[in-house]
């Protein structure tokens, strides 16, 4: 092991795209967790970037902790098995089990195993990095794709105008679904607020039981903005209220960043090619949904 990566969990030389939001999310989350972890990586951009095809032959592995990839939808169940296995062997103490998946791997195909693991009360932290579509396969819509966003499978044409939700809603609300499981800790985070993210991960690491952290991680390629603007886009999502930073600790909601002057969502949408078809009426509809969500969270 190189001396320069002694205290890091994710080091340089990984194969994520330039300007990748998701790898930045993992860099902060994993480094905050430290080295006493075992990670399960669901099939995803991050799995490919960390242990994909080019990585094996020469062992160019960017983590300094053990990790396993099994399949796309397995994360919750595999960490459940690890939890049971380590318990049975008397080796459970001092190890945090981490399941990492993207939004598709979490909200769509992997929801069942995640729900099962949460319901059974296994001891693990689940990290969902959310780039709002299946980016590994080239930008297909997922359960967390934002209303009206154009993806390759929710394109804009004569009859359809990007991602449709009936009835209209922003996206599938994964943190709320996880909170409904009654688990001890649920949090949202953003790559634009690394201190907040790190704090939440560390808090989760010190707890037991199922813990869920959902990190908003823009994708330059999929969303259509310059790769230098990844962090800026994540910040705009929070500042316009399209993404809210909060935690639910043992059932108690705490909004960790109360945006004082919420910007109109138009500022956020206008910078992304996936929304370039959007009309004022559609922007108004999204704005309304954001306002509603804020009300639900007890904000202005």
């Amino acid at each position, binding site marked *: 092991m190189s001396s320069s990566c002694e205290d890091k969990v994710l080091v340089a030389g990984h194969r994520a795209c330039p300007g990748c939001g998701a790898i930045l999310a993992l860099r902060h989350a994993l480094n905050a967790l430290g080295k006493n972890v075992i990670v399960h990586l669901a099939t995803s951009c991050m799995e490919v970037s960390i242990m994909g095809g*080019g990585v094996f032959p020469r062992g160019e592995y960017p983590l300094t*902790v053990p*990790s*396993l990839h099994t399949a796309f939808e397995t994360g919750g169940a595999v960490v459940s098995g*690890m939890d049971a296995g380590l318990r049975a062997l008397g*080796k459970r103490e001092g190890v945090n089990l981490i399941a990492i998946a993207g939004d598709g791997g979490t909200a769509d195909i992997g929801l069942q195993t995640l729900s099962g693991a949460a319901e059974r009360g296994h001891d693990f932290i689940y990290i969902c990095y959310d780039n709002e579509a299946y980016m590994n396969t080239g930008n297909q819509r997922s359960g967390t794709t934002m209303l009206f966003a154009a993806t390759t499978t929710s394109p804009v044409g004569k009859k359809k105008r990007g991602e449709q939700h009936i009835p209209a809603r922003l996206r599938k609300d994964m943190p709320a679904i996880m909170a409904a499981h009654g688990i001890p800790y649920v949090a949202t985070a953003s790559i634009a607020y690394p201190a907040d993210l790190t704090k939440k991960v560390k808090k989760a690491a010190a707890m037991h039981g199922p813990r869920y952290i959902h990190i908003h991680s823009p994708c330059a390629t999929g969303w259509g903005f310059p790769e230098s603007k990844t962090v800026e886009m994540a910040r705009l999502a929070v500042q316009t209220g399209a993404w809210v930073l909060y935690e639910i600790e043992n059932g108690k909601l705490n909004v960790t960043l109360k945006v004082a002057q919420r910007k109109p969502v138009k500022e956020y949408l206008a910078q992304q090619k996936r929304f370039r078809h959007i009309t004022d009426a559609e922007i108004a509809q999204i704005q309304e949904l954001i306002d509603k969500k804020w009300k639900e969270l007890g904000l202005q």
Partner: protein
Amino acid sequence: MSGNRAIAEAVKLAQVNVVSAYPITPQTSIVEYLSEFIANGELDAQFLQAESEFGAMSACIGASSVGARVFTATCSQGLALMHELNYVAAGLRLPIVMAVTNRQLSQPLGMWCDHSDAMGERDSGWLQIYVESCQEALDTVIQAFKIAENRDVLLPIMVCLDGFILSHTSEAVDVPDQKAVRAFLPPYKPDADYNTLLDVKKPLAAGGGCPPGYTMEFDYKKYEAQEKAKELLRKVDGEFGEAFGRQYGLVEAYRCDDADVIMAAMGTIVSTAKDVADKLREEKGWRVGVLKLRSYRPFPKQEVLKATAHAKALAVVSRAISYGVGAPVFSDVAATMSHASKKPILLNVIAGIGGRDVAQKDITVVFEKALKAAETGKVESEVEWLGLNKSLVGG
């Protein structure tokens, strides 16, 4: 005790660390017994009832990858649901043992015995062993852990027992002494430098991508491990025989030595067929024998050739269908024979589908047809559907 009870007793004797499963008929009582053993403290293990068979196999992979000895059981739709992960378990070289209470696959829906479920996993890299009695079920599970965990094999194993016909049949079973089993089967000790083992002290990335330049080589390694497993199956079976007085072999050639015709099959059909063969020899003087294929993966090519070399006809009776071909087991036998200089005429027989009983009279028909083929040098039909109601479907 029932076949399912025998399996559960074996899992207890193997002192597994984790059992993860999902209920499905007729497997359910296996995991009920195991849950009971764990609840009573008779077995010191973790029981994890997953949210699906898919989750169960995922959890087995998770548990095995941190070094636990792991067992699961399923069949039919459950086994089909595990399909994706079965390949992953084999590819990660995790020595998981699974009991499969063989049951048909829907549609049509039914809960009765045939082998189509396990046939779907034929090429997954798992070893498959088919048993014919409750005693053999118990003994084979214990053997399976020892074989699976061997460094030269490191592949998961399915122990297949006919759903209901064996899983729910009660008969006398000798349960070996725990200490003797412990001596035969020590705890699983994975090698962190060789096995898939996730340990914070020895960080490892497992299950990642592999470019085309290497994938074939890893698959070759699995193929080689299955070949090596044949030797190990013999060795472990022999050691088991020494320790417990019972031995089974990769195949059992029952009265095949002087047989003109032989019937090859897997599972409980074999047991009934042995009885029928005795009777036909005694009453009619027919020289018939039965070849039990105990190990299906790896396929015991040498043993099959040796047992059938002198026979005039070989009827391969299969409880599963390969559409467009006949039966999967027939393909295996025919492939095995392809380079033999002298070979029997082969009959491709499908029987016992969807729980249809294979009675003594049915087996007699198979021997009759095989004798006729031996005499005439021709088979009556390319694929024989034994007991098919022709008044409904013609044929």
